[in-house]
């Protein structure tokens, strides 16, 4: 998809990014000790911390990913919202206060507060690093998607830009800066989503979403073919070039004035119709054509519209303003046109074709379009659904960059109040994502090459200013989250691994310096991965990070808090088993198979999310290993040896 650069957007964007970087330099000058680098010195107000929590959590996955997945797959995107929020219940009711009482700077320290075991230090720091990196990938992918329409840059340039800015932020400051940045952007994100939802509802539903002439809605062509022996032989004004049967669909290539277009041949009992499709053709000579023309010609339209709107049993052209309830229930009774993708070779060319699939609102508003659990379900798809819901539920409490925020307020009471404020803010936001996602699905704003841009592109339809502010906030969202993650992973390397595990008794000064070097290294790594995973929905990618976190960290945390006999060997073994099993399942999953350039159907298994297998495996490990190799010294001694 090609985008025009908007200069209004550019101005707002640079003001905002400037503000973020400026803020972090300001706080950076206050960062002197290692405690203020890693945990903001325990000095942050609970209200600020609560919104910052929300800011941390509402990463690219929430704003870009969930909205995008709802826009493309309907209710299945909302599953992520439900699971992401459910996870906070685990964090609040089981983990928050005990953790705060155990607490030091990092997740590793908390796990190790009772044992002082080198095996735990090593395994926990590895797990922090891996989870952070997996969480970093979607943020980087989202950043790349964002800058394409905003600055007219290619995807890789966006990834590089975010990486560079964040490395500067983190290397110059630390946790204090990221808290205030997260606070600012968390608050703004929620406010702007309210504005966007208000516009969606005010606008209502319409068959021709042209925003009162401010953007032109493209109506897809429908042609009537002449057919002989199951073949299209002629179409008026067009030359028939080729015909391909893919699965139960037939696609026909036509040409007019030297331009080739693909059509989806729809055959009913008494009708035969060619419906225009959208294509991206990778030609043998390396050129890429969008709908048969170069990208600059802008023939690769934004999509997403309704084919029927039903109000009180009557079909209407448009509804006018709707209440939130009316919006949802009208969509449920109407029909939405989705675009589904098929890939096939055409001579020496590779064609990626998107055809129109009218979908009843009633199925769009139910789970099952992406995670098949109703019609067309099989055992794998049902397991996949359970696995996803498990990972989302258990992952939140085990994310290292979320846990680290418990230490930034003074008392357990404040940590609790922060968390509840965060839950309320995040819950409110997730209900808004439903409207923003559905709004993008029906207002002709979707970019078929990446679902991640649904919400910002919808904002663009409502005006350049709203678009620029939302993009800038979303970009800052990515910046903030990436910064937080890099602090967490640099903590894992510099503090846990080098300082504690290798027992190099570093001076405070050296520790901060080392943290910054580690941050730089992780940053570079994240940039490379962000480029590699272009085009995948960011929520889907975050689902993996959650699954790894849930498998590697949560069994260890829960057993430590709730089972007296948990041993240091058990914890370390469970973390390792959790990481290895979840990583193995992810790396052999259909999506990765596709990334390796293999057929996704031929993958070793069809499970996209590993939690269903890796979490119970890690639980079993911590239990059995703790029984076989019990903790070595009596508790009293351990308590005395852990120091302040």
């Amino acid at each position, binding site marked *: 998809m090609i985008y025009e650069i908007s200069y209004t957007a550019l101005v707002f964007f640079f003001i905002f990014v400037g503000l973020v970087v400026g803020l972090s330099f300001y706080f950076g000058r206050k960062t002197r000790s290692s405690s203020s680098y890693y945990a903001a010195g325990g000095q942050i107000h609970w209200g600020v911390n609560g919104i910052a929590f929300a800011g941390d959590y509402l990463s690219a996955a929430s704003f870009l990913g969930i909205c995008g997945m709802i826009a493309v797959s309907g209710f299945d995107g909302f599953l992520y919202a439900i699971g992401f929020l459910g996870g906070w219940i685990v964090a609040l009711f089981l983990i928050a206060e005990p953790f705060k*009482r155990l607490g030091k700077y990092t997740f590793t320290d908390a796990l190790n507060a009772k044992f002082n075991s080198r095996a735990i230090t090593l395994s926990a720091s590895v797990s922090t690093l891996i989870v952070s990196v997996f969480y970093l990938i979607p943020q980087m992918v989202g950043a790349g998607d964002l800058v394409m329409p905003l600055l007219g840059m290619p995807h890789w340039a966006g990834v590089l830009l975010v990486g560079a800015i964040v490395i500067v932020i983190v290397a110059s400051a630390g946790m204090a800066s990221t808290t205030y940045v997260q606070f600012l952007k968390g608050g703004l994100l929620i406010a702007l989503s309210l504005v966007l939802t208000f516009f969606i509802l005010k606008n209502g539903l319409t068959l021709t979403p042209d925003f009162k002439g401010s953007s032109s809605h493209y109506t897809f062509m429908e042609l009537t073919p002449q057919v002989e022996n199951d073949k299209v032989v002629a179409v008026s004004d067009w030359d028939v070039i080729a015909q391909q049967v893919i699965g139960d669909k037939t696609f026909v290539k036509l040409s007019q004035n030297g331009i080739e277009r693909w059509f989806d041949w729809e055959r009913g009992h008494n009708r035969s119709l060619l419906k225009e499709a959208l294509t991206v053709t990778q030609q043998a000579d390396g050129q890429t054509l969008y709908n048969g023309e170069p990208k600059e010609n802008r023939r690769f339209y934004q999509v997403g519209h309704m084919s029927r709107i039903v109000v009180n049993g009557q079909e209407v052209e448009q509804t006018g303003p709707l209440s939130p309830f009316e919006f949802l229930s009208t969509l449920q009774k109407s029909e939405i046109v989705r675009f589904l993708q098929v890939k096939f070779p055409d001579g020496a060319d590779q064609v990626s074709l998107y055809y129109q699939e009218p979908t009843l609102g009633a199925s769009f508003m139910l789970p099952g379009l992406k995670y098949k659990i109703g019609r067309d379900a099989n055992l794998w798809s049902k397991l996949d*659904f359970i696995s996803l819901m498990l990972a989302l539920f258990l992952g939140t409490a085990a994310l290292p960059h979320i846990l680290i925020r418990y230490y930034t307020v003074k008392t357990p009471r404040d940590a609790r109040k922060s968390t509840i404020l965060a839950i309320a803010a995040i819950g409110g936001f*997730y209900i808004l994502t439903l409207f923003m996602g559905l709004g993008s699905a029906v207002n002709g704003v979707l970019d078929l090459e990446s679902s991640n841009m649904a919400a910002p592109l919808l904002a663009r339809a409502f005006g350049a200013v709203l678009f620029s502010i939302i993009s800038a906030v979303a970009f800052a969202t990515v910046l903030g989250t990436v910064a937080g993650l890099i602090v967490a992973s640099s903590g894992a390397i510099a503090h846990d691994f080098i300082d504690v595990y290798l027992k190099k008794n570093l001076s405070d000064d050296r520790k901060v310096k080392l943290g910054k070097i580690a941050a730089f290294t992780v940053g570079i790594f994240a940039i490379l991965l962000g480029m590699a995973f272009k085009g995948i929905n960011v929520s889907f990618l975050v689902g993996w990070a959650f699954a790894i976190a849930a498998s590697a960290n949560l069994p260890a945390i829960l057993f430590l808090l709730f089972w007296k006999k948990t041993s240091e060997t058990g914890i370390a073994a469970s973390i390792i088993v959790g990481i290895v099993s979840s990583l193995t399942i992810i790396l052999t999953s259909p999506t990765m198979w596709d990334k390796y350039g293999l057929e996704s159907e031929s993958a070793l298994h069809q499970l996209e999310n590993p939690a269903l297998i890796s979490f119970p495996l890690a639980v079993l490990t911590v239990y059995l290993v703790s029984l076989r190799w019990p903790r070595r010294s009596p508790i009293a001694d351990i308590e005395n040896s852990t120091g302040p």
Partner: protein
Amino acid sequence: MHVNNTSTEKETLTKRKSSLGIRLFFIYLVFYTGFVLIGVFQYELLAIQILGGLNLALAYGIGLIVFAVVLGVLYNYYCTKFEDEANSEQTNQMKEGGTT
């Protein structure tokens, strides 16, 4: 709960709060699991229209989000109450100790 209690908080208070947390967690877990199980075993139920024309999937999903917030607020209310009670008990004991 056997935490390494480094703060000055009393053990009984910690226990009260954590057992409340565990109970609320299980209440939520039941509702969350309910949603997943309906999806897997009784998919057709999710399409039933309830509550102002919304289907069960939407109502349940939005309900789970709202319910989490409600439980959070309840938890905070009771924990704060427990803490205040424990504090006033402590000051009362100190006062009594002073007079005798």
